[in-house]
């Protein structure tokens, strides 16, 4: 199975010791060798001193899903030796720091042990605790370079780019790399049976995390107001937005064409976005589950008062504070109907950084066109891990869809302006922006109002407005991104999934096909569900819904919104907090298909 450009390895260290840069170096080097690669960072909710892991998968065919167990384990953290060793494939390899006698817990007779005195070498070569600790990481990177045949020219070039100016750092890094590389080369026969060979499969690709991509999407969509309260794993979305704005959004005199407000909490952040949206700005806030829960009241206001607002929910493992540095797709149900009273909200489900970029744009267009809150449902895996994806492209002919907004000219044409009257079938009522024209003035409120925009406590007037909202959301269902569908010859059974599960599910389906199990595939990309989703459901007797939460929330939404008979939706759920693995998919699907008739 494993072999040239097809294997995975894992590095276990202690956080706050600088291993991140060493791991990034490795991943990027492989990428620059033209070989498809992906990295998953499994880190603690803590700043320094706790176990942290980095998983790197190399795959010439471009499969990027997570796959444990591992061909090679780099166990740098004595505290987690035992469990790390347990994750090695039989006949796999273990690399550890042999400066100190080897722990019993490490012995496993089906594993080849590679000891390298990293600590010792670094202590002899470098001075000062800090440098010694940092360089130990670079040193194991060097050892891996030898064991996996990483192109040293590429590595050197990268160090040059990174430390070019800082002579001293450059040297120590060179040294450290060499320490590991040379020791490994001298004491073990390198490379290992599975290793790297240059390819040309990454030319049109980049390595980027979803928060960066989403931030870029906001910049390109023309967002000017960002309000946020820091929270893992959403924080870097706004930090990236700020960085990009500092670069692209200052006028000649250095004045800012954007305004980012670090709010006092998520309630305030939501309110700020709504205030800005009311004024006509494209505004957004990135957050995670706890923030979404706090925004409930404000989201209901935006829904009922019909104010555009964009929310990014970079989902983490719930409930409550849960596991802030683990991934999950468990905010689907509570977000779809967030806030008291009858509500329903538009959600978009990006599968990777690429779609985080495009769907950020879509979110603003939909929010303004339908004058309603839109949630981009990302997760920690998409948001914070570096994915290999195609270079982002922007169509310069794009112009924002601002929906129906009446300017002074348009207002002159109407006899009188009434905020909540809708002529057209999609249930959207034209709005005006504050400060534009006296004739356009109206009163925005979350309390009962009639179609004229006046306060009301009258049943019929109230119903008239909320009934239109139903039509509006129905229209939105047909405007959200269409599902990704792969038909494999009208199989009678199909797999349905969403978001980051895509990578593992697609690979899983290929594997299953090899085993003769042929299944159609649909990945929903937006909510409410439109006609294509219904048609797909109609075409298959049984569906297996694969998602990352405990309660089968996507399955619930499909049941509620499409009226499909529940027994036609089988459910596979993974909710341990780690990115979905291909093996899980294959085993899960096979398990569920027991007894289910699958004709191809």
């Amino acid at each position, binding site marked *: 199975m494993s072999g040239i450009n097809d294997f995975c390895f894992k590095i276990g260290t202690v956080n706050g010791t600088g291993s991140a840069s060493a791991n990034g170096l490795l991943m990027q080097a492989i990428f620059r060798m033209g070989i498809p690669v992906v990295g998953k960072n499994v880190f603690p909710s803590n700043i320094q001193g706790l176990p942290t892991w980095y998983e790197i998968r190399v795959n010439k065919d471009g499969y990027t899903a997570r796959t444990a167990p591992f061909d090679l384990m780099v166990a740098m953290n004595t505290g987690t030796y035992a469990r790390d060793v347990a994750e090695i494939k039989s006949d796999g390899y273990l690399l550890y720091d042999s400066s100190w006698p080897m722990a019993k817990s490490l012995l496993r007779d089906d594993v080849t042990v590679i000891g390298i005195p990293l600590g010792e070498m670094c202590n002899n070569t470098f001075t000062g605790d800090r440098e010694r600790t940092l360089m130990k990481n670079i040193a194991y990177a060097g050892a891996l370079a030898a064991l996996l045949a990483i192109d040293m020219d590429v590595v050197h070039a990268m160090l040059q780019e990174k430390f070019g100016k800082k002579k001293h750092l450059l040297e120590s890094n060179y040294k450290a790399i060499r320490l590991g590389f040379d020791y490994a080369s001298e004491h073990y026969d390198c490379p290992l049976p599975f290793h790297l060979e240059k390819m040309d499969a*990454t030319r049109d690709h980049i390595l980027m995390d979803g928060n960066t991509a989403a931030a*870029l999407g906001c910049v390109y969509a023309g967002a*000017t107001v960002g309000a946020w309260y820091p929270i893992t794993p959403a924080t870097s979305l706004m930090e990236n937005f700020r960085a990009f704005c500092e670069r692209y959004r200052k006028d000649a005199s250095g004045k800012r064409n954007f*305004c980012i407000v670090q709010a*006092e909490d998520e309630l305030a952040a939501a*309110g700020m976005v709504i205030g800005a949206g009311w004024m006509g700005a494209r505004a957004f806030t990135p957050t995670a589950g706890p923030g979404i829960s706090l925004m409930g009241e404000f989201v209901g206001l935006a829904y009922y008062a019909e104010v555009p607002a964009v929310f990014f929910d970079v989902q983490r493992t719930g409930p409550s504070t849960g596991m802030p540095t683990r991934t999950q797709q468990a905010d689907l149900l509570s977000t779809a109907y967030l806030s008291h009273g009858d509500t329903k909200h538009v959600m978009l489900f990006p599968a990777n950084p690429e779609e985080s970029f495009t769907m950020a744009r879509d979110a603003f267009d939909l929010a303004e066109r339908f004058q309603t809150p839109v949630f981009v449902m990302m997760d920690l895996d998409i948001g914070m891990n570096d994915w290999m994806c195609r270079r982002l492209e922007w169509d310069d002919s794009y112009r924002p869809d601002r929906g129906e907004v009446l300017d002074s000219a348009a207002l002159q044409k109407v006899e009188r302006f009434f905020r909540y009257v809708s002529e057209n079938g999609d249930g959207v009522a034209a709005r005006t922006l504050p*400060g534009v024209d*006296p004739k356009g003035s*109206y009163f925005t409120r*979350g309390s009962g109002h009639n179609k004229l925009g006046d306060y009301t406590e009258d049943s019929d007037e109230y119903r008239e407005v909320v009934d239109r909202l139903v039509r509006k959301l129905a229209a939105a269902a047909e405007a959200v991104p269409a599902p990704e569908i792969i038909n494999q010859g009208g199989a009678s059974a199909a797999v349905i999934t969403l978001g980051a599960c895509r990578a593992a599910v697609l690979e899983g389906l290929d594997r299953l096909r090899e085993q003769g199990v042929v299944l159609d595939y649909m990945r929903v990309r937006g909510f409410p569900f439109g006609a294509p989703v219904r048609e797909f459901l109609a075409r298959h007797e049984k569906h297996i819904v694969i998602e990352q939460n405990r309660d089968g929330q996507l399955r619930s939404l499909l049941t509620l919104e499409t009226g499909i008979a529940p027994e036609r939706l089988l459910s596979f759920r993974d909710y341990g907090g780690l990115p979905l693995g291909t093996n899980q998919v294959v085993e899960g699907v096979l398990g569920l298909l027991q007894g289910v008739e699958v004709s191809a």
Partner: protein
Amino acid sequence: MTSITKPKVQHPSSTRNALGLTRRDYEGGMSTLCAGCGHDSVTAALIDAFWQLDIEPHRVAKLSGIGCSSKTTAYFINQAHGFNAVHGRMPAVATGANAANRELYFVGVSGDGDSLSIGLGQMCHAIRRNVSMLYVLENNGVYGLTKGQFSASADIGSKSKKGEANVQPPIDPVLLALTLGASFVARSFSGDKAQLIPILKAGLRHGGFAMVDVISPCVTFNDHEASTKSYLYTRQHYHEVAPVDFVPLRREITATEATEGSVRSVTMHDGSTVHFRMLAEDYDPTDREAAYHYVRAAHQRGEVATGLLYIEEGAADMHGVNGSIEGALTGVPYETLCPGNAKLQELMEEYR
């Protein structure tokens, strides 16, 4: 029932401001508050202030939370956009709106429940950000709309209509604002238009967050003997620190205004001026410490210190801090905002 809208009988006689608009043009829907509610007087004062300042009605953004006080944004300037937010969360909505379009006049109307209980955190942070807006806190010591529970500004010993006495120390928005570094802090009384109007005008022209605490009695639930927010009590214990005259830029100061009593003038960021006639000798409205102690001392004497208590012009507002462009962000064309694909492709090189 649908809201009642008032017939707009134009008094031919009614005088016009520089825009040729009459006071009527600044009015709103008919009030549905209790007859005699202090809030209606504040609404009237706001109408005068906007009218006298010749502010274009549609260039005003009116925001409020939830409460009787918060309802009043519907009762002035029909031609302005209004926003009744959710309870206690108006400051955030105003902050976002101001971030998007700094060119409008922002007025926020709130109550003591809306601002000092559920909204305390948001109000404090709007002050800290120095969001440029006139913030009118219609303070009656009770939750009017929910029928008379004590609010956080009810004074110790103040009795509810049911006769229960409040036992918790009150939160004084004026002291709070001074402590949080507010750049404009005033207090007045709904019954004193002569004092209130110039303060509101100064607040509207102030280049930052203008906190105006207005004692505004609730005639239905908190205007009885034992209440410290009643008309009677306020009138009796009313103590004016510094009567103020607000002089908009384009009117030069007439002798009379300038010479009454001992006058102290402060120039607003837009060049217009505020004159204080000092009653309390050596009261310095630009000395935060002094203001704080003056207010406390008055309170200990059982007095309510009113007037424009503190003002600091030139402090950077939210946009100053952010280094925003002069104009409204909503006015920037998309073409300026989007870096374009060429830039994107350059950027992609950094992710390889």
